[in-house]
């Protein structure tokens, strides 16, 4: 008697192909990704039809929180000649020199280690008096302090006297005078300065920043926006 043979089905699926696909995807994401930089305040930039991309090198971005606190982020060039770290280290040294012009008696000096710490930071925004103390904090404490309510950000006010600059103007001047000629050129052309502010920020707050830049004769700059598609 012929037996009906039930075909045994293999329940295991071959995962090799699946693995191939995932590795491919993984490679893609690893190569194309630029990591989100940690920022002291989260802002939602207003929408605009402008399609110009934010430059990813030679840029001073001015981050304005909703309450009007100001933070700075400085990027050097893309190649290794003027890395962000080099530019930032130089920026801090310039800032000290700049600050001493108007405050000759100020006791302001940073050790090499402090400068090194500063160079590695993406964003900063504390009064220069507190800078030393802030740089010596532990990394997580440092972030907390930067985001904290007690931190006033970089001191800024309505100042139209270029000979008596406020701290914000000194920082911008210091960035302009830093070692990197590409950054200087970008700042003159207006591509090197970007204001990043939240869409709900009152204009009076943004105006203070713009006015400060105007005082320094940096009339050209960019505003960071998010892409909006315009239906036609």
């Amino acid at each position, binding site marked *: 008697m012929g037996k009906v043979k039930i075909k045994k089905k293999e329940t295991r699926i071959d995962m090799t192909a699946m693995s191939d696909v995932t590795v491919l995807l993984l490679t893609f*994401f690893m190569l194309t990704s630029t990591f989100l930089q940690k920022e002291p305040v989260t802002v939602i930039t207003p929408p605009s039809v402008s399609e110009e991309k934010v430059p990813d090198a030679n840029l001073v971005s001015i981050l304005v929180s909703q309450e009007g606190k100001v933070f700075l982020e400085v990027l050097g060039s893309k190649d290794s000649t003027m890395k962000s770290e080099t530019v930032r280290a130089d920026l801090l040294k310039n800032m000290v020199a700049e600050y001493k012009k108007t405050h000759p008696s100020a006791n302001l000096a940073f050790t090499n280690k402090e400068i090194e710490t500063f160079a590695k930071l993406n964003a900063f925004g504390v009064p220069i008096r507190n800078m030393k103390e802030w740089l010596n904090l532990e990394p997580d404490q440092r972030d907390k302090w930067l985001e904290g309510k007690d931190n006033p950000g970089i001191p800024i006010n309505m100042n139209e006297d270029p000979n008596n600059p406020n701290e914000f103007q000194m920082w911008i001047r210091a960035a302009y005078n830093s070692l990197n000629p590409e950054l200087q050129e970008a700042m003159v052309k207006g591509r090197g300065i970007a204001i990043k502010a939240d*869409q709900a920020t009152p204009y009076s707050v943004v105006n203070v920043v713009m006015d400060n830049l*105007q005082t320094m004769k940096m009339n050209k700059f960019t505003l960071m926006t998010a892409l909006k598609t315009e239906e036609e």
Partner: protein
Amino acid sequence: MAIKQKSRQKKFDTRIDFTPMVDMNMLLITFFMLCTTMIKSQTLQIALPTNEKVEKEQQNKVKQSEAVTIIIDGKLDDKGLSDPNEGMLYYYDGMPETDKLATTGESNMKQIEFGAKTGGAYPAIREILQERNKEVCLKIADLKKEWKEMKFSKDEEKNDSIYQEKAKAIRNDSTLKRPVVIIKATPNASYAHVVSVLDEMQINNISRYQIDRINEVDSAMMILLQGQNLKK
């Protein structure tokens, strides 16, 4: 009969189970997907006038017939933030009619609501601007038609660049009647509104515009207009 001793070799399964590998890869992909920024922010380039005091004679006065002044106003909430969905827009052509304002209390200023209720910030002023920049807009529209039909070149990139160049020439063509838009914002206006008005300049092909500070006459006219509207 001797029984042939079979040396039984154990058969190894050469297939490796890839499931854990796939699991791990998926996890990594998820991580990279969440940590990356695929969309870069856009920028909007602006140029402000200098802050220096310019002699009255040296000021190149904008032709009265071409000037349009737009004033952006907003509302602050309890947190001191300006809602991007609510706002008012005031505009007038040419110079403010100060004499008429002093004698009759009427001005040439008009008011439009500018917010979510009227379908976003955009339709409110687009008509006004397009009306004033009719000649340029019509020419650009014609040009766009040609661009869509790929009339300049068969090559897409080349077609684009020729179109951009021609459009720029039209925007800056001084033989056409072009408006000069002066944008002013009250301290309460939200940053998003200012950006959206700047955006309108691009959309409506206006090449001459500037951001200025609000003055006493402007605020006087605004208060007057608000008072008149309340009476109605």
